[in-house]
């Protein structure tokens, strides 16, 4: 438990001192979103129609940007092999990594969501559905992405490979999340989608840390 809290605290401290890794994906997110009204034209009806898709794709890409660095610095400076060597479980360390990654990349995206939705003329129901869906999905994105990040941590340029590995896993979440926003805008019930997203979240919460810890043990085995 001590390792868990100390590790979260350490990650927050490191990123607080060098915030660029955290800020880059967020700036990217806002830039991508704000380009669409310029490219497509400021037609509220048209923008509102495609808004959930745009916001979601931008959020996915922004998350993927932050994914590659999740374990890289720990691997390169040797912290990771010290974790493996110590008799504490890599699993706890991985859980802490997921929590800090979500706090630093998922949560800020959720907080930026209302702003992004405003840029695209979403109405109130749409904004709420979008924010709620991202809140439910962003931990899943961190969890699934962590597997890819851990598998590619030993490779010199793993960035693109993470995207290829992780994208297929992101598809179901993307489908359910955009469908949920469309349903909310149409005024129909969204609870079914919430259940689905929660199910995927808990499923990945059970499996992703095990896979990630195993991948990290493999990465240090050299």
């Amino acid at each position, binding site marked *: 438990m001590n*390792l868990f809290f100390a590790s979260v605290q*350490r990650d927050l401290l490191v990123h607080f*001192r*060098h915030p660029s890794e955290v800020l880059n994906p967020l700036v990217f997110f806002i830039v991508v979103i704000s380009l669409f009204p310029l490219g497509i034209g400021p037609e509220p009806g048209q923008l509102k129609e495609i808004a959930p898709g745009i916001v979601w794709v931008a959020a996915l890409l922004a998350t993927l940007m932050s994914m590659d660095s999740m374990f890289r610095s720990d691997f390169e*400076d040797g912290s990771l092999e010290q974790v493996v060597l*110590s008799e504490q479980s890599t699993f706890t360390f991985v859980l802490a990594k997921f929590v800090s990654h979500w706090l630093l990349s998922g949560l800020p995206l959720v907080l930026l969501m209302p702003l992004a939705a405003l840029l695209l003329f979403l109405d109130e129901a749409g904004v709420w559905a979008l924010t709620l869906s991202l809140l439910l999905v962003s931990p899943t994105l961190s969890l699934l992405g962590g597997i890819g990040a851990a598998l590619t941590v030993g490779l010199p340029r793993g960035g693109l490979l993470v995207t290829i590995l992780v994208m297929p896993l992101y598809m179901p979440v993307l489908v359910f999340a955009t469908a949920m926003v469309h349903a909310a805008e149409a005024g129909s019930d969204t609870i079914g989608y919430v259940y689905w997203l929660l199910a995927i979240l808990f499923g990945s919460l059970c499996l992703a840390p095990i896979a990630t810890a195993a991948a990290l043990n493999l990465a240090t*085995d050299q």
Partner: protein
Amino acid sequence: MLQVLKAGCERDGRLLFEDLSFTLAPGELLQVVGGNGSGKSTLLRVLLGLYTDCHGDIEWAVDKAPLYLGHRLGIKQSLTVIENLRWFGVLREEPVKEFRIDEAVYKLGLAGFEDTLCAYLSEGQRKRVALGQFLIMDNPCWVMDEPFSAIDADGLSFLMAMLQEHLDSNGGIIISTHQSITIDRPINTLALQ
């Protein structure tokens, strides 16, 4: 504290060592020597279980996992000297007392750098921070891969004293280095071709 029986390791199609048997008893120092690329670092990693593509029996009889100083120091650039030392303690689940950390910082000649980010330290100073883990904890066995590189003359004599003290308190040390170790204790040497 360590018994190795017929250990062998092949890497990238090259045989690094084969049929290697040795023991390490409390109060003993084992120096691993050999040319560049002879497999010294790999041997240490094999002993620690960090590299598993090998065969043979490696049995540790210690109550705490050995401390390890590798080529990758385990030092975070954007943490301060003190924060890095505390992290070593957290990893090993040792309730490290603050006075031991202060003492280690002083002994390692890092006084005045306590709150400096490790990114601003020199290579030798960073190595000293990594060596600090051996001073703040009481693990019986130390495994050190090239601990003397980038360390100056003062640091070297301090390190020798540190090794001597650990051996005197019945600890075991495995070291890979080209440097000659000047302590008044018998040194076992293991040469790799």
